């Protein structure tokens, strides 16, 4: 059973790159014990849990597991394969704009979102109205949920920029 990672105070999931091998996701289960998932460059996935040998899945079953767990069972392996080829891997996420957020009241063009953050706002959820592929003149409002497509590491800088403008 892997020892607990060094110098961690929080219990947030952590993604560690294993150069030349793959990427490791470190989670904790409900009793606080570490659960590690390794996605290897050859497409196989290893699940490391409570001691003993890790469970290994081939790429197809790994995709199936991933899609099943997130509830998007319709995401086919071919699609996630192509997405995985994108530099750094692609994630979809959303950022909510609270009142007083830096981005509230400004247009996408004014904020120069793509240029400043490298992130694309693919849709805005406003009340019950989704605005898909908003154009540059669209003004963001407080209360908006901004749906983005970006690399994992770009989420935080984007959120910071939208909220406080830095």
């Amino acid at each position, binding site marked *: *059973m*892997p*020892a*607990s990672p*060094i110098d961690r105070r929080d219990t947030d999931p952590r993604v560690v*790159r294993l150069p*030349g091998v793959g990427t490791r996701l470190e989670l904790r289960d409900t009793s606080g014990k570490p659960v590690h998932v390794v996605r*290897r460059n050859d497409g196989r996935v290893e699940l490391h849990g409570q001691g003993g040998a890790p469970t290994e899945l081939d790429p197809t079953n790994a995709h199936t597991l991933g899609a099943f767990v997130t509830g998007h069972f319709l995401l086919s392996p071919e699609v996630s394969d192509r997405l995985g*080829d994108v*530099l750094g891997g692609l994630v979809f996420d959303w950022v909510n704009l609270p009142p007083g957020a830096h981005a509230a009241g400004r247009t996408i063009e004014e904020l120069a979102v793509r240029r400043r953050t490298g992130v694309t706002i693919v849709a805005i959820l406003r009340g019950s109205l989704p605005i898909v592929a908003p154009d540059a003149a669209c003004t963001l409002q407080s209360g908006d949920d901004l749906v983005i497509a970006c690399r994992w590491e770009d989420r935080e800088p984007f959120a910071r920029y939208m909220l406080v403008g830095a």
Partner: protein
Amino acid sequence: MGRELMVLGLAFLLAGLLARGGRRIGLPTIPLFMGAGIIVGPNTGGPVLFEHPEDLELLAAFGLIFLLFYLGVEFSLDDLTSGGSKLLGSAGLYLGLNIGAGLVLGFAIGWGTKEAFVIAGATGISSSAIVTKLLVELRRLANPETRLILGIIVLEDLFLALYLAGLAPILGQADGAGEAVLLFLRAFGFLLALGLVARFAPNIVGKVITARDDELLVVLFVGFALLVAGAAYQLGVSDAIGAFMAGMVLAGTAAKKRIERLVLPLRDAFAALFFFHFGLVIDPGEIGKVLVPALAAVAVSLLLALVAAVGAARINRLDRLAAANIAFSVVARGEFALILVVLATEAGLDPRLAPFVAVYVLALAVASPLLASRSASLSRVIPARLFPAARLATADAG
């Protein structure tokens, strides 16, 4: 023509079959590819299928080029910096000890100053290929020390590129200090220029080396890699560094992940040929002369691996099992030692270097996985009190 094709086909088959047999007992492929070459080469009794190893030289050079090209594409400075000072410290400790001891050993063996530097590099840098395979096969990817081991490997990769550049004047046979400095500057200038392109202008290159079809992308990046490697060679910098830098440049383009995936089969095929070809040119009759220094180097490397590993484990507050895991993984030697010695031989340095490195690499490439798979029991030899700050004991899960 037909005969050449058959010879080449046989080369691959022999290397592959021998390596496959060895996998069953946990041996890595590198020493087995070399072994296949030794067995059927002109220097041993028995079947001689390759009277003229030099026929394979160009293709073997591709192995060297794609090995380093892949490293460059895969390389990310983040891997080094994200580990923090502990990672850099541990890697620096390992590298410093090994290169330092390698220099001492090299001068002690007394084949010459240039040769001493080659020996230092060959004994100081681990085999990334063997280490990464080892970690996967021993199911240690979730271990706390794995990230550290991989970080050490990454730093060594970078160090190798710089070391090869630094050796350019030595390997380039400069006449006098002035020309040596010129060669050195040319080598670093080349590295710097490509480094700047990699850092600040990869998109420009990315507009050329890109294609929607995988087939076209392969053709383009192979051309790019060979071109840059060849240019490096012409400039007196080894083609190996050229290939590494070409990889680094492409690592900044949008096609990076695709290139990483597409170059693997090429790399594996030609790398096998590289090791096989090395085996072909080794004369086992020369081994007697170099056996003592080679085994001394093996012993020194093993000892230093343990010392450095204990240090690295302490810095990172890991326990003795982690130290043992680290020691026996990173002691593996392979492709980089061979690359160095091939360049040295081309430059006309002492011919004893080749059998010396062959014995050294064969010994450690075999010893490392055997020791690493038993690190749990072997770790008991290390006193636990050396690790007062260890948080939790690593379980004996392989």
